[in-house]
């Protein structure tokens, strides 16, 4: 991006443009560039090329900084819940994760706790078939917390290795739906003490600054342990995860890069930071 020429204000403007166009956001970009100016002095950085490398390091540090305490269960099953706003790829990502764990020899169950949206259970059923895992569901309109409870209880009594719970998409501004999610989390804990062990907030890479608000407000009703960033096979950079890691310390766990069952990758912070500037 910046090459071997000497650093001037225009170099910083180019870097700011790359960060903002990557959806890192104004606030986080400013903090990053302030830190970068300090490094220019401290490390005596002279060329744009080295400057860009330093910025990539700063971004990588932020991304690696998230702890995202994942509870290690004392007994089976491990319970993972997929949450997020509408259409981000929760159901599809769940299918990919279920397949990954099943093909590693684990006994996997999926819970169809989206009892609201048209054909949501049918959609998950197709993924369960593809991943060759069991599915627990109920009829449309059933209480999602009840479906989650039944699935987790059943998995516990049968000592399954992992249960993935699919939930309905919901905008964080819908108070009743956020309370429903809080209840789902609480009820899962009743079915299996210590659960859920992982709660993955699924974010669409095309999403802008609203993702930070999503992370905050979903985090208020259920403890978010990690992010899944989907649709990175598009042209959006998903830089908003840098803001989320910076402000909330929540790490990215997986990247969704397609609609196929194998299109999931564990998160690589360095590769992601570099891609922001490509």
């Amino acid at each position, binding site marked *: 991006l910046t090459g071997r020429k000497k650093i001037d204000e225009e170099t910083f403007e180019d870097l700011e443009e790359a960060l903002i166009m990557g959806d890192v956001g104004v606030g986080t970009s400013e903090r990053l560039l302030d830190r970068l100016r300090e490094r220019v002095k401290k490390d005596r950085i002279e060329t744009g090329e080295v400057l860009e490398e330093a910025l990539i390091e700063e971004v990588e540090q932020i991304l690696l900084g998230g702890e995202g305490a994942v509870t290690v269960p004392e007994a089976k099953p491990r319970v993972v819940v997929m949450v997020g706003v509408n*259409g981000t790829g929760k159901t599809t990502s769940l299918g990919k994760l279920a397949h990954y764990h099943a093909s590693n020899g684990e006994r996997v169950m999926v819970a169809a706790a989206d009892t609201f949206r048209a054909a949501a259970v*049918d959609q998950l059923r197709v993924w369960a078939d593809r991943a060759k895992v069991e599915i627990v569901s109920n009829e449309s309109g059933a209480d999602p917390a009840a479906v989650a409870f039944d699935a987790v209880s059943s998995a516990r009594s049968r000592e399954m290795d992992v249960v993935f719970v699919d939930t309905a998409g919901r905008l964080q501004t819908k108070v009743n739906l956020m309370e429903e999610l809080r209840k789902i989390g609480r009820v899962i804990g009743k079915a299996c003490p210590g659960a859920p062990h992982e709660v993955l907030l699924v974010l669409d890479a*095309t999403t*802008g600054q609203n993702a930070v608000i999503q992370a905050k407000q979903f985090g208020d009703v259920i403890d978010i342990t990690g992010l899944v960033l989907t649709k990175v096979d598009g*042209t959006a950079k998903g830089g908003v995860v840098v803001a989320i890691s910076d402000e909330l310390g929540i790490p990215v766990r997986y990247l969704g890069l397609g609609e196929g069952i194998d299109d999931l990758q564990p998160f690589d912070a360095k590769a992601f930071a570099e891609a922001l500037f490509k």
Partner: protein
Amino acid sequence: DLSQKLEGAFKKLRGRGVLTPENIKEGLREVRRALLEADVNFKVAKDFIKRVEEKASGQEVLKGLNPGQQVVKIVHEELVGLLGGELVPLAKADSPPTVLMVVGLQGAGKTTLCGKLAQRIKKSGRRVLLVAADVYRPAAMDQLKVVGEGVGVEVFIQRIDDAVKICRAGVEEANNRGFDVVILDTAGRLHIDDELMGELQQIESDVKPHETLLVVDGLTGQDAVNVAESFNEKLGLTGAVLTKMDGDARGGAALSMRHVTGVPIKFVGVGEKSDALEEFHPDRMASRILG
């Protein structure tokens, strides 16, 4: 609130003098920040600020308005102008059926929108046929079937794997059975997927839609320009719909979309139910973007 933020930047201008590029520079930086926080594309925001600077320069500082308010008024007017003038209604064919094609990225809200459009058109007394042309997504056709049942509209389903054939057959069915409108629900796809974009071009050349609506998720950030540009290059877009605006996303994607394609935003999705569709109001959108 933006005018409050600008008040500080314009303290020295109160009640006298003329707005100049120099004395409004700091204030315009605040406006640019607000636009970027609202997800307006970086380059679009840059162009927009230039336009505002040109419009504002030379204006007398008006008595009774603090200069910050005056600049916000100019910004707001400029935004409304760009977002879109006259409300452009849905296309209507001279001889039925009117063919509507709904396109966009994965998860934008197309299938849900098809149900909303079907209900709206049905309420106006016209017969609608929904066509399930998504052959990829698991249970996509079942989803549209349930959506159709919810609004009492028939859904054309052919469980084959050729979307072009389905659309052709669906429009033919609409023709033969005297439907007024036929709505094609297509699969979500990436604008950079040449094969799938080619599929849409084939459908377009086959059935010649009177209306091709690009559905964009209201939460979309900087990428909105890329998506809108690509879809507009490859297809004859006639309108756009911004969805999930019942949330608190500022909706800067609307400005980005309009700026690069000039395509009118016709509707706004404001919920998951079949009645959650509003006509696009540029003034409301402008206020929302400015926060």
